């Protein structure tokens, strides 16, 4: 097990190295500079060059890359070009909390409701329960979350005045965005659980369990649901990464200072250090979540062995 995790950490470092290299050169291929070109257009070329030089942008791209790597190894992600003087590390950590909180709530809520709906639908297969659940699931997939967000904002926030319309001021500010984000998760999880459970229900070992005289509840919880969760765990990894790292649209609609909008803006503005910082963060987070997902497989199904040799 230790060896396995050690191996995975080396794997993570190599992955991050490759991702950062590719991102760096792609990013440098973006047109423009991190500066306000319309204003700089008024300056003589020599002065423009001096401004570039003061940020080390006059050096060849490869030299810039080597310098960047050196700093990253030292744990320094640099300072933002766009938010002048602000450390990329500080910007990311301050923007992460809102996105992560909303994302986490959306995942937990979506997972809970999705599981319940999926289980009910499978258990009451081909009944009104099943159809109702699947209609909800189809709606959840087909209604874009920004439409839902706008509706929630208008009715719950403005018309009924139950929750804040927008902004990030106290805990209630996080509720509407979480709801807007979780509907997609509910739909996805419910559909997966239902399909998977229907499959498991037809397995021989379920018939065996029934024949042994086990109660329905015990069969459901000990055999059916547990075995159906494998597929849910597989899709849960990407869902968690997606949601915890923020959604541009939801953040803009609710005026939330999240990391999703930061990432998009940094690319629009050629804020090199911020682009790199967020990319590294996203990738590290993704690989980390994948590791957890792999560990969870073993937990759900002991037959899945992560590494050969001693566990």
């Amino acid at each position: 097990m230790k060896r396995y995790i050690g191996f995975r950490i080396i794997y993570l470092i190599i992955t991050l190295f490759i991702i950062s290299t590719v991102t760096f050169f792609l990013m440098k291929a973006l047109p423009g500079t991190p500066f306000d070109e319309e204003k700089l257009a008024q300056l003589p070329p020599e002065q423009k060059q001096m401004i570039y030089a003061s940020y080390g942008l006059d050096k060849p791209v490869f030299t810039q890359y080597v310098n960047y790597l050196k700093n990253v190894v030292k744990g320094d992600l640099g300072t933002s070009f766009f938010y002048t003087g602000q450390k990329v590390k500080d910007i990311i950590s301050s923007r992460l909390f809102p996105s992560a909180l909303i994302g986490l709530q959306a995942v937990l809520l979506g997972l809970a409701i999705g599981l319940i709906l999926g289980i009910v639908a499978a258990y009451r297969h081909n009944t009104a329960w099943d159809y109702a659940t699947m209609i909800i699931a189809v709606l959840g997939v087909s209604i874009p979350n920004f439409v839902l967000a706008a509706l929630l904002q208008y009715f719950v926030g403005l018309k009924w005045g139950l929750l804040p319309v927008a902004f990030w001021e106290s805990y209630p500010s996080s509720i509407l965005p979480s709801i807007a984000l979780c509907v997609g998760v509910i739909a996805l999880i419910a559909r997966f659980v239902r399909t998977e459970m229907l499959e498991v229900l037809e397995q021989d070992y379920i018939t065996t369990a029934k024949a042994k005289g086990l109660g329905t509840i015990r069969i459901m919880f000990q055999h059916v649901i547990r075995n159906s969760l494998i597929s849910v765990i597989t899709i849960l990894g990407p869902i968690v990464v997606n949601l915890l790292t923020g959604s541009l649209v939801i953040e803009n609609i609710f005026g939330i200072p999240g990391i999703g909008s930061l990432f998009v803006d940094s690319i629009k503005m050629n804020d090199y250090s911020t682009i790199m910082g967020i990319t590294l963060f996203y990738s590290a987070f993704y690989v980390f979540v994948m590791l957890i997902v792999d560990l969870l497989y073993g937990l759900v199904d002991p037959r899945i062995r992560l590494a050969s040799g001693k566990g």
Partner: protein
Amino acid sequence: MKKKKMTVLASLLLVSAMFAGCSSGFSGSESKPADNASGKTSETAAAAKDLKVYVENEIKDLNQWKASDDVSFTILNNVEEGLYRLDLKNEPQPAMAEKVDVSDDKLTYTFTLRDNAKWSDGTPVTAQDFKYAWLNELDPKIGTNGYSFIMTDYIVGADEYAAGGSADKVGIEAKDDKTLVVKLKQPTPYFLRLTSLAPYFPMKEEFVKSKGDGFAVGADSMLFNGPYTVATVDAASGAVLEKNPGYWDAANVKIDKVDVKVIKEKSTALNAYKAGQLDRVLLSSSDVNASKSDPGFGTGINFRTTYLQFNTKADGISNVNIRKALKYGFDSKLLADQVLNNGSKAATGLIPDVMSGFDGKSFREMQGDLVGVDAAKAKEYWEQGVKELGKAPKITMLVADTSEVKDVATFMQSEYKKNLGIDVVIDTKTSKARNQLMDNSNYQMGITAWGADYDDAMTYLDLWANHTPYRGNYENANYDKLITDAKKETDEQKRIQMLLAAEKTLLDDDVVVVPIYFGGYSYLLNSRVQNLEYHPYGNPVDFKYADVK
């Protein structure tokens, strides 16, 4: 199995610890200490007056030598102050300066600072603070906002200093703590207006040095001398400004607290306004008609002209008759009234509608209309141009990917189809990519805009004297002469005449640019708010004069 469970548990704990670590992440909770602090005085100031506004982009930068965007200027203008400040009529009034003596040749300005001009740390604002800050703006290693031209164009020796020369030769002299002498290259009737702009704000050297790289990254690394101080600021969620009790004119500042939020979605802002969380909201064109009957409805105009920039060296476009055809080939009145419908007005020239001219007349009144649709003329010029070129040129219009500009481009495309029978291709790029293509002279014509920094036609017209690809590679010795002569001219009437001639050359004779519309906006304002001033140029917003009922 147990071991695995432990590992998973440990990882989950790690994740939850990550969240717990940043649990103070609500912007409201950050400002709580400030609320508590002022809570003590809340009995005396029973009715603290507050104003709730928003900006449409992040507060990117509160360092006066780096900031170049309207949002940053909005905050800076209210927490810092230059020698002069614009009043409710957009006229410059003495601010940090108590008075100014201008020499007879109009080249030497001697400013006397107020005795009660103070920094928020209690120390007086001195002439050295101005000199230090201005030299920083000129130094390309520090002043990276691209605004140094607003000094180099006017102040003696500033150009040379920006290019690496000596600071001693720059015409900025701190005679004593209270006296600042500025030497200009040429008489500049609007120089006092310039001193109200953010690049001309003072700053205290000692304070900047003590903060090092961390200067102006947050409220506690800033020093204030304006009507307000920054209590809290977060680039993405907004800033809270509080009245600066040490401000020289604090008696006339009526609002105690200004809450500036960042909202990027127009519909979100409108909902927040309706929910009473904002005092003023800008309307998108689709909301204008529904809001017109609202008592808080109003429109305003910015000194910002959106125009078509021709590249005079590009294929086809190098022919002046083709450019003339494209100039007369679209009806911008239709565009402003029906497509934009947000308070914008059809452009009749490059210089915006209400910009000052001479003797109480606006520049536009003196010049008359230089652009306007004329389908017959357009067709004639087009045919003439095609004859000269030997074939009809293919025309591509380069535009940035913002929704407003895309609407404008689509409209113009249909107008050209209707009036000239040609198919103009629209090339949509990100702003950065568009700027690069234009910088590299790799375009035929592009839609771009310029907002005035000060109330004088020169803020527009000298842009085309620098011959860059961005300004269409335009070179005309006569035009350049008009601009340089106008900069030297002491007789105001003659100076304006030269600028009028320059605009005519640019728009009529050489057709290097075609103005499309003067930017405007529609808004709803809470009836309790008075004198919330949005300046049409320069530093956009003043909370200093505002009051609420």
